[in-house]
């Protein structure tokens, strides 16, 4: 049929003209975004001037005029006259910024602790691994005790030893589970049940088998950890970034569960629970963190008999946890209120009880909505932990200040602060980026729009 038609009888669109040259490419982008009008142009010029001016200053101070090798701050000053950064001092104190006054020979324990945590949580990001909730829950509930034993050393006492053994067993279980999943099984539990020969029995029997396997693991782990012989490093020597991470890490990991419980309690219909939770939240939300820290560290020991000698760090961590939980509770409550009433009614209509309704229907939706707020709160908490320097815990901020009081580095003040700022920026920026990633992957249609 085509050959019957004349070419000029067919509508042939001409190729469209190229866009005007000044609207495409670099020039176009610049015109559109930076020089769209007189006001835009002015703003661009002012902004660029400021960036160049301060960028140049910072570059000159931090790189061009900076001193990288020196024995004292005086030497730096003699070289630069105060116009350049003295990174030599920061370099000399670097390991103290990270570990505080933790004994130099024992610092491998800190490294090991954080490596264990990273390895423990790694299966979260393995696509084929099941039971991811258990990975997280076991790490949050038991890792702090393993870490406490590892970092503290000395004679940990029976409680810590037991908790350490449980933690080690959980750690082993998590990685056996990874192995089982990649070997094609559903979970490590299935493998254990099959190996034990009780596979054809009922579920209750399976539970007992798993419990027994856990018990065997526990005994082995207990025997293993009792061979540990670690020198004691008292918490007063903990410091630097390590201490910051310990306090904020425990605060962050306990804030969400505690906040969820408090928020549910506040919305509860049971008057005692509701009043208690409301009072708790309102009390600790209305008081500055520094006040809570002061109360915990200086007033609590006055109220306690001396036979109970609470560690300062423990008191601080408890105070931070309480504070963080109170704030988190209100964020969670906000998230809960954003959920349509129909969701509750639908869940109830399906015959779900309160806990099933909350854990299966409401919370998953609410938590998705809350991600930006939650992460924002975590970042705030991370930065708030620098307040512990006021009550004399040598976190990264106080360590950076201390380095400027070392007679050799007397007057070194700006450089350590810049370093600490950079550390906090990196940590917070990573958290922020990860939260955006989370929103994209689990937020679905409710994510950022």
């Amino acid at each position, binding site marked *: 049929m085509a050959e019957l038609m004349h070419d000029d009888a067919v509508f042939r669109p001409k190729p469209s003209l190229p866009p005007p040259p000044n609207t495409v490419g670099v020039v176009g982008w610049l015109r559109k975004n930076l020089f769209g009008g007189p006001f835009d142009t002015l703003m661009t010029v002012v902004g660029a001037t400021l960036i160049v001016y301060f960028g140049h200053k910072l570059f000159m101070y931090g790189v061009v005029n900076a001193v990288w090798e020196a024995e004292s701050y005086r030497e730096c*000053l003699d070289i630069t*006259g*105060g116009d350049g950064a003295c990174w030599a001092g920061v370099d*000399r*104190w670097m390991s*103290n910024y990270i570990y*505080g*006054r*933790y*004994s*130099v020979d024992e610092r491998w324990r800190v490294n090991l602790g954080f490596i264990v945590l990273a390895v423990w949580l790694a299966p979260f990001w393995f696509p084929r691994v099941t039971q991811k909730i258990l990975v997280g829950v076991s790490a949050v509930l038991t890792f702090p005790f393993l870490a406490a034993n590892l970092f503290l050393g000395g004679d940990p006492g029976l409680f810590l030893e037991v908790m350490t053994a449980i933690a080690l067993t959980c750690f082993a279980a998590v990685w056996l589970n990874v192995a089982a999943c990649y070997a094609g099984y559903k979970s490590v539990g299935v493998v254990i049940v099959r190996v034990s020969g009780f596979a054809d029995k009922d579920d209750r029997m399976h539970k007992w088998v798993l419990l027994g396997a856990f018990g065997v693991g526990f005994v082995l782990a207990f025997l293993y950890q009792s061979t540990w012989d670690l020198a004691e490093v*008292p918490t*007063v*020597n903990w410091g630097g970034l390590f201490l910051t991470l310990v306090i904020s890490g425990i605060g962050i990991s306990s804030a969400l569960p505690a906040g969820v419980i408090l928020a549910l309690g506040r919305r509860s219909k049971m008057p005692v629970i509701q009043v208690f939770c409301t009072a708790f939240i309102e009390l600790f939300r209305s008081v500055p963190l520094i006040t809570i820290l*002061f109360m915990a*560290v*200086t*007033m609590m*020991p*006055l*109220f*306690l*008999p*001396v*036979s*109970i000698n609470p560690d*300062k760090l423990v008191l601080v961590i408890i105070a931070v946890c309480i504070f963080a939980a109170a704030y988190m509770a209100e964020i969670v409550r906000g998230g809960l209120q954003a959920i349509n009433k129909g969701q509750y009614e639908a869940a109830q209509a399906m015959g779900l009880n309160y806990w099933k309704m909350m854990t299966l229907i409401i919370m998953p939706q609410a938590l998705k909505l809350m991600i930006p707020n939650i992460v924002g709160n975590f970042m705030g908490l991370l930065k708030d932990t620098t307040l512990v*320097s*006021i*009550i*004399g815990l*040598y976190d990264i901020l*106080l360590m950076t*200040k*201390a*380095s*400027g*009081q*070392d*007679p050799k580095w*007397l*007057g070194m*003040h700006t450089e350590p602060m810049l370093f600490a700022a950079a550390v906090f920026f990196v940590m917070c920026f990573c958290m922020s980026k990860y939260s955006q990633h989370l929103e994209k992957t689990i937020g679905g249609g409710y994510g950022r729009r």
Partner: protein
Amino acid sequence: MKKVSLFGLGAGLLAALTFTSEPAFAQQSTLDIVKSRGQLRCQLGTPAPGWYELSDSGKWSGFDVENCRAVAAAVFGDPDKIEYQSVTSAVRFTAMANGESDMLSRTTTWTLFRDTQLGLDFTTVSFYDGQGFMVKKDMGIKSALELKGATVCVLTGTTTELNLTDYSRTNDLGMNAVVFEDSNVRDNTFFTNGCDAITNDKSSLASTRAKAPDTSIFTILPETISKEPLGPVVRQNDSQWKDIVLWSVFAMVQAEEFGITSANIDKVIAETTNPEIKRMMGVEGDLSKGLGLDPKWAYNIIKTVGNYGENYEEFMGEKTVMNIPRAGSPNALWTNGGMMYSPPFR
């Protein structure tokens, strides 16, 4: 006292609810607690050059640290059996009151209020400090009385600020205080001509000067406008412990008067005919009995920590960043016209 009784009530209630034991430091002597713990808990401030320096290897040293080391040497014979507690000045007295620290040695001025109203006892003065002014030499000022209408950089929330206003009013100088929260910011402002003068305790002025890009252009004016006697502090109502701390400091002063140093102590004891030295060093008599210490307590202090003059040279002397001349100051021995004076060891 109202506050204290209120806290006491709270403490009592809580103790009754949970455990029926009282705070142990109220019953047991501090010496017993320290001995059974095997460590002295000594409170310092956050690092400050000269006074309590924290090295990059995590070790404490300094003029005030030597007081702690002396007490540990007296009690244990080992100056390193110490848990250093470095706390900010905001909580220094509560940390004493709640039994956290056994003693405090951290540039704390002895005042009547503190000695009587905080449940604390000041032992003695180990350093006589006083507030002064520092200016740039090229201002050509020779006396603080010439600072009429000057702007003066000062830290807030300390008695320093109060002393400055008092001095300005008394002498009708009309000074303008520029108030700072952070000493580094204050110092930088002064260095960059943000104020004409800076005021603080003279020992702190010395460390401020040491931070400057060019230390030679500053001068500390002769006037001392306040008395700041600094020394170790213990909890009230434990006179045995107070005596131990007090006489540990005296031992260092007395040793300097005798010319005994950590280097020559064994030689001096072997050769001396002076009975007071023999008594002090535990060769004769039983002077240590009342203190409840080993007869060699003073020997251990001097041998391991050194005498007062050695410590001064090491941390405040002309070879240090502090560079505070001792001759002619109240911190010289009384035999040299200063105020360092130990009661006799007999």
